């Protein structure tokens, strides 16, 4: 039996990697992937707690998160493609149309 703490530490590490990547990376697709990473880190904690307490709610929650993430990926990728067509770049520092 793997202790719960291991799962949580792993999830925290993944989440922090996600945040760090979000803040550091300039490529929109990479940022997008880091968001997915954070989501999955959270999913991991949900599943771990669900297993620990023998409750099914946490697992159901994970399914919802996955559905939302899939929808988000679909919309997000579409936006990214549209953005690339207009700006010819995926560098977020140059995508600042709303400034000023």
């Amino acid at each position, binding site marked *: 039996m793997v202790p719960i703490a291991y799962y949580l530490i792993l999830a925290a590490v993944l989440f922090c990697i996600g945040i760090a990547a*979000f*803040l550091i990376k300039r490529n929109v697709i990479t940022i997008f992937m880091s968001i997915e990473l954070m989501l999955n880190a959270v999913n991991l904690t949900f599943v771990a707690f669900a297993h620990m307490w023998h409750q099914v709610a946490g697992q159901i929650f994970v399914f919802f998160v996955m559905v939302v993430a899939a929808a988000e990926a679909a919309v997000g990728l579409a936006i990214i493609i549209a953005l690339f067509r207009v700006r010819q770049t995926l560098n977020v520092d140059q995508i600042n*149309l709303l400034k000023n």
Partner: protein
Amino acid sequence: MNANLLWLIPLLPFAGFLLNGTLGRKLPRAIVATIALLFTAAPALIVADLWHFMLSTGQQIVSITSRPWIAVSGFHVDFAFTVDHLTLIMLAIITGVGFLIHLYSVGYMAHEEGYWRFFAYLNLFMFFMLVLVLSSSFLLLFVGWEGVGLASYLLIGFYFTKDSAANAGKKAFIVNRIGDFGFLLAMFLLIAHFGSLSFNDVFMKIAATPLTGGFLTAIALLLVLGATGKSAQIPLYIWLPDAMEGPTPVSALIHAATMVTAGIYMVARCHVLFDRSPFALAVIAVIGAATALLAATIGLVQHDIKRVLAYSTVSQLGYMFLACGVGAYSAGIFHLMTHAFFKALLFLAAGSVIHAMGGEQDMRVMGGLRKKIPVTFWTMSMGVFAIAGLPPLAAFFSKDEILYNVFTSPNPLHLLLWFVGLLTAGLTSFYMFRLWFKTFFGAPRFDEHHVHVHESPLSMTVPLGILAVLSIIGGWVGIPAALGGHNIFEHFLAPVFESTAPIAESSSTSLELTLAVVSVFTALLGLYIAYTFYYRKPGTAAALAARFKPLYGLLDHKYWVDEIYGTLIVAPLLAFSRIGLNGIADTGIVQGTAVGLAKTTTGLGALTRRMISGNIRSYAGWLALCAAAVIVIVLFKH
């Protein structure tokens, strides 16, 4: 007689005002004039019917009440009209003289712009003036009071493109505001002490208590302040001479015959109240006498024909005040009536002279008009003889009645007041004959090739004729017993003033005769001096003026009263408004708050704007930082 007809008396002129005010601009002049005349003639007929009804049935009071106007927990005011004999006389003067002046205006204003506007305002004035005298409560009277002030303002400033006219209108309005302030305070006191504003309630309550002085004096003095504003008495008389900027028929109707007598009417109406306050009565008497003398002396040196008449009006109003002040209300109202006749006549005749001279008002360039405009000359002569107090014309009886009442009054100052009244009578006679001689006699002092003097049209001369007849016979209703009459007028008003009036019939006939002879002698003396100065030896006046230069200057500048008010009241008020209200309150506080708020938000915005960099990673950084902060706080809180 259906009492509901009372409503129609003021409402008909109001309908005329609405018609001419809304449609008049597009209507031809003849129709505008017809509307105005019809809607003033109709109330006159109703009033005549009312006279007939009240005299034939002997009914003293006709009144009518509509639904409540204001009803608040125990205090209520109704729309209610009451007609007693005093109101009846006022109604007759207003509708009768009013109609004649409307008729006159048809001719006088024929060539003026804004014909419809003039008649609309004139009808509006009639409406408010009739409300004023018909009302049976202080509040409704106040509505009329304010309304005539408004109409007066509009008509003084009728030639509003002229600065002086617009300013004169404003002056009249503002000065009257001061008086109205007193009237308002008096009404508040009445509500506080009697819980009612109805004349009947208030006077019954006063009659039921033995109170004298105290707050009654306060109320009375505040009412006097109101009356001094409306009736142009010291200290608020200054607006009336300037009001002559209005068209002449307006001066005749509003500033001589009717509106300015509202103050006297109000004092007479509230005689129950004033009788309880000897102090307030004494104040009225002193104000009246002082105003009569002051205005008469200023009138001596005026050159503008209308200004002479204006000061004469102020002076005659002073007489009426004096009469009220010694408790001789019916004498005051008597003089009010005869004054309405002869002063309306004088103004209209002066208007006819001005009309004939093509708009010239300066007597220095008139002269010799007697032969050229005979109708005007003869009618105006009647007015001049009447105001001078020569028997048997109107003012002889009314003025003597006042002087006699003053002489026999218990007022400790009565001899002084009487003497001032007599002196004023002499001065009045002098300046009126001065006007007469300067205008109608001697050689013409204008260029006869340029000024085509012409007699006025029939619509102007007919009112002149009627008013001249009234100025002659108007006083015969009040011939005192000492002169073989019955003083019908005083008996007629006796029911109204019964609480006051010990009708002084029993008193000395010889005294009354002596006083009459003295005043006639004074009037003749005035006539003789004017004759010497301005007819027999012209130039005497100029020589005298040169010899008593400071005195002449004082009179010529109207005792510097306007300047004194300007320095003592207007200038400080203006300074306070500019610095205190405009500078500190408006620019400083009001504008300062608004601008300060705007500046603060702009500054805060400039600071927070730095956070909105448009860089998505910086937003994410802020988000992460704040989330971390929240976690830290949550963790370490426990």
